[in-house]
């Protein structure tokens, strides 16, 4: 399967030039860019590992790309995403988030069902890879 979290996952993987253009866009909006990685892509895993702090003071896409590259090298077989954070009143949240690296093989998720009273059903989504310990999943 192909994990389709993130803004551009239905497109072919972005080239470095395309990634840089998106970072340029984020910086032009005044957003702070950050890089995160994970090998637990459960849809409700909100807290991917931060690859350093959000780059609040970095206004140059080339500098951001160095961080993106470093993270992709260090975690070549993890998911890596670029986030853009907007501190404007009323937002104070992410405004863009897209995947820039993914494991070579994505085994996906299983769905566990727990039958209850009547036809009630409770669901659990479980990443096949996450059954193994962190760092040894992909």
């Amino acid at each position, binding site marked *: *399967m192909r994990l389709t979290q993130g803004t551009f996952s239905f497109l072919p993987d972005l080239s470095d030039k395309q990634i840089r253009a998106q970072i340029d866009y984020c910086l032009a909006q005044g957003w702070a860019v950050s890089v995160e990685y994970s090998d637990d892509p459960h849809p409700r895993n909100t807290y991917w590992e931060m690859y350093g702090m959000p780059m609040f003071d970095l206004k140059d896409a080339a500098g951001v790309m160095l961080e993106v590259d470093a993270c992709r090298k260090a975690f070549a077989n993890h998911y890596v995403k670029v986030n*853009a954070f907007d501190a404007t009143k009323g937002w104070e*949240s992410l405004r863009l988030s897209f995947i820039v690296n993914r494991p070579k093989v994505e085994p996906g998720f299983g769905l566990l069902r727990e039958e209850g009273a009547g036809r009630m059903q409770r669901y659990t989504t479980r990443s096949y890879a996450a059954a193994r310990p962190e760092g040894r999943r992909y």
Partner: protein
Amino acid sequence: MGSSDAKVAASERYRAGVMKYAQMGYWDGDYVPQDTDVIALFRITPQEGVDPQEAAAAVAGESSTATWTVVWTDRLTASDRYRAKAYRVEPVPAIPGQYFAYIAYELDLFEPGSIANLTASIIGNVFGFKPLKALRLEDMRLPVAYVKTFDGPPTGIVVERERLDKFGRPLLGATVKPKLGLSGKNYGRVVYEALKGGLDFTKDDENINSQPFMHWRDRFLNCMEAVNRAQAASGEIKGHYLNVTAATMEDMYERAEFARDLGSNIVMIDLVVGWTAIQSMAKWSRRNDMILHMHRAGHSTYTRQKSHGVSFRVIAKWLRLAGVDHLHAGTAVGKLEGDPMTVQGYYNILREERNAVDLQRGVFFEQDWGGLRKVMPVASGGIHAGQMHQLLDLFGDDVVLQFGGGTIGHPMGIAAGATANRVALEAMVLARNEGRHIASEGPAILEAAAKHCVPLQQALDTWKDVSFDYASTDTPDFVSTPTAS
């Protein structure tokens, strides 16, 4: 403005009998609205021979303290304050016989936090008043002191996006079709295919509740199976707006609780349930971490005609106060009524922290939303992937684009239709962010994206010539150089 301005002595004013509303104190051309006043702008069409200023005063009277005759019991109250005051009347540009009337209401006329109470005053008796041929509530200014008495949207755009983990693009949805007749099992199939194909949400239609062909529990069970299957297949959060609209409040709570227990992240209600039920469901949604989707079923009966009724921009304001997270607000390019600028005005009302006066978009007042959360507008009805550039250009990122026929009617099936829409959307957002001019380059961007996505090519081929190009009935009548209020 004429003789009715003249103040009369109290002994004259309260003599038993009938007198003009303006003389009773419902017109005050010198009145300066206070920051805490509720202000309503009406479009009035007086009967032949009725003075527009008197007509405005009558509207002020009938929507606040007046009755048809003088009553001495007014003198037991601070009636000068409680009387609404018409303070400005001007002809509607280029439409003879119609006038814009501005009326200010003292804040204490209204119960805090109750749309039912607000509407009982502002649109209560007055719309049937005989001296007027027609009456339309065009816009309202709601003072922050009043706004702060409402909870507003239970989730709001920001938190909805954080819960869904979806940023930087419009969300995609589709309404299950045919909207009536499918069994629960077949209905859930449509949900599964559409979500697995790439949509974020699917949706019950306004009139799918609990009918002989599909009882509500069966629909909920099958839809949540589909949602969870699609979530596992994609690794993305998915949702289906389960319509909990029902005959009684008790039934609605029962349905909403079942949706929650099955793990749904969103429920939906129809506008026809009424203001009290809407506010009850807003509070329930807040308590239960639920996104509340509002389908504006029935609104066109009173929003569409320019001369009479209530503008949708007012309904949008009331719904933001009452507390919904999603609201259908028009597409401008689809099959349903909506002038593009007017529709953008609705979107701004739902999404901005503060609305500036914007007469071209029909926004007559500055409105501070006092930190109330933002409502996600929904564009639905006769739209397809080939219009993606227009939709993104008109409405930006914070909108749910719903392609019902444009997903389910795809020649290669529902999942292919969903994929076509998602690819078209992501390609368009990518291009816009790269600085391309999507309004003009849109078709070329779509054609290029279709090179790596066969379903998108098929969608473009199927619907390329479909457009709904009719004149809108509801457009703002504005003065290009507004006079100061």
